[in-house]
């Protein structure tokens, strides 16, 4: 057992993926010589050489276009787009090429691409560095979307994403890069299938559903709720496409109340999809409408205001209380 931060766990996952499969290639802006702006690719170019770990021009569309060509030629590209907000110039390649090539080619040209995308807010960064794009990518047929909530999760989900035959958008929660956790990356881990969620804290009065950095926020809320005698279950959705409908239904059918928490704006956010899945599966057992605690329908604010924007402990507690107080009829 060793202690790893998320950035170190991801670095190790990339290292092991490169060792296990000669076809794995890592590229993006500053991932080579610099080792990434968050040190996630630190030391990889020195170890695996400039042919396998290399810097690209500052052109995200080109990064993803290169990934498409390399995947067609039989490689396993693991490109990085340095920040969420800079993936917009690459959306054409991601939506029109990466997501469709396997389908378009009648299965002859798979796209085993893992796009590493440092995502979400919480680090007082400038504009374009704090976006939550899961709903946009989850809406595109052909893409899988995942976000780890901890170092051990980061290690195993990144290995799983790189090994997966389909394109995966791997959303790394920037605000969780530095927190540490002990785990043994070499120990055989339970291999949960793609699209499986995980209960990180059991409870019986309501289920908090979250992913990425909001999982730790929900764990804080559950801790505080326990002081009031309220036992909250925390479900880490992990995969945002495909969504674990069975896992959601299993939890909410027991707790009979659900609150979805995400950083992205409310309207047409992934919380709407989760809420619908829960409602479809648990309509008869739900004691209250599913609540959503999210960012607001505004551009992500500057660092000085982000604590007002991100779901706060009190906003989540208020939503929980709404479900506790709700009466039908």
């Amino acid at each position, binding site marked *: 057992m060793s202690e790893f931060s998320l950035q170190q766990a991801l670095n190790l996952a990339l290292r092991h993926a490169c060792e296990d499969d000669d076809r794995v290639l890592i590229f993006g802006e500053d991932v080579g010589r610099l080792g990434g702006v968050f040190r996630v690719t630190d030391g990889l170019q020195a170890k695996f050489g400039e042919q396998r770990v290399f810097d690209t021009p500052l052109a995200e569309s080109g990064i993803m276009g290169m990934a498409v060509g390399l995947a067609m030629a039989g490689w396993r590209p693991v490109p990085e787009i340095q920040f969420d907000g800079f993936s917009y110039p690459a959306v054409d390649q991601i939506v029109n090429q990466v997501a469709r090539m396997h389908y378009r080619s009648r299965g002859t040209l798979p796209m085993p691409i893992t796009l590493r995308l440092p995502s979400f807010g919480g680090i007082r960064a400038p504009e374009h560095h704090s976006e939550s794009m899961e709903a946009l990518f989850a809406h595109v047929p052909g893409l899988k979307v995942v976000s780890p909530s901890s170092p051990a999760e980061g290690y195993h989900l990144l290995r799983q994403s790189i090994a997966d035959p389909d394109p995966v958008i791997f959303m790394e929660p920037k605000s969780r890069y*530095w927190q540490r956790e002990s785990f043994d990356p070499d120990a055989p881990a339970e291999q949960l299938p793609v699209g499986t969620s995980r209960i990180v804290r059991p409870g019986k009065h309501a289920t908090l559903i979250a992913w990425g950095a909001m999982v730790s926020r929900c764990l804080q809320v559950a801790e505080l709720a326990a002081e009031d005698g309220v036992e909250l279950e925390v479900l880490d959705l992990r995969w945002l496409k495909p969504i674990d409908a069975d896992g959601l239904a299993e939890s909410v059918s027991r707790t009979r109340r659900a609150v979805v928490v995400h950083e992205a704006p409310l309207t047409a956010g992934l919380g709407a999809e989760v809420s619908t899945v829960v409602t479809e599966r648990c309509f008869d057992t739900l004691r209250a409408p599913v609540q959503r605690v999210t960012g607001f329908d505004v551009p992500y604010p500057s660092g000085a205001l982000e604590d007002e924007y991100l779901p706060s402990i009190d906003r989540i507690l208020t939503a929980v209380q709404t479900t506790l107080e709700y009466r039908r009829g």
Partner: protein
Amino acid sequence: MAEVTVPLPDLGEGLIGAKVLEWLVAEGDWVERNTPLVEVETTKSAVELPSPQSGRVTRLHVEADEELAVGEPLVTFTVDDDQAGIVGTVPAEKKPSRRVRLSLPED
């Protein structure tokens, strides 16, 4: 601890290299961001370069009077792992606080 190596930045005006006139820090020094790091001379002028970040200087890659090209390693810092990010700041871990209390329904 992590190491961060800072290369000679592009000094503009199409210049491709510079000569180190004088180091303003020494190996082992702790420097803050924007502390004057080194004075270099290009074919145009002599300029002081501010440090792009804080950290402990572990290695000066060139000596005074030596030349280096833009992009070549200039100085290496040792920084805490949690300060190795370049954009934004590491969120402080603070004790969660609350105002809202919960109450279970009667039934």
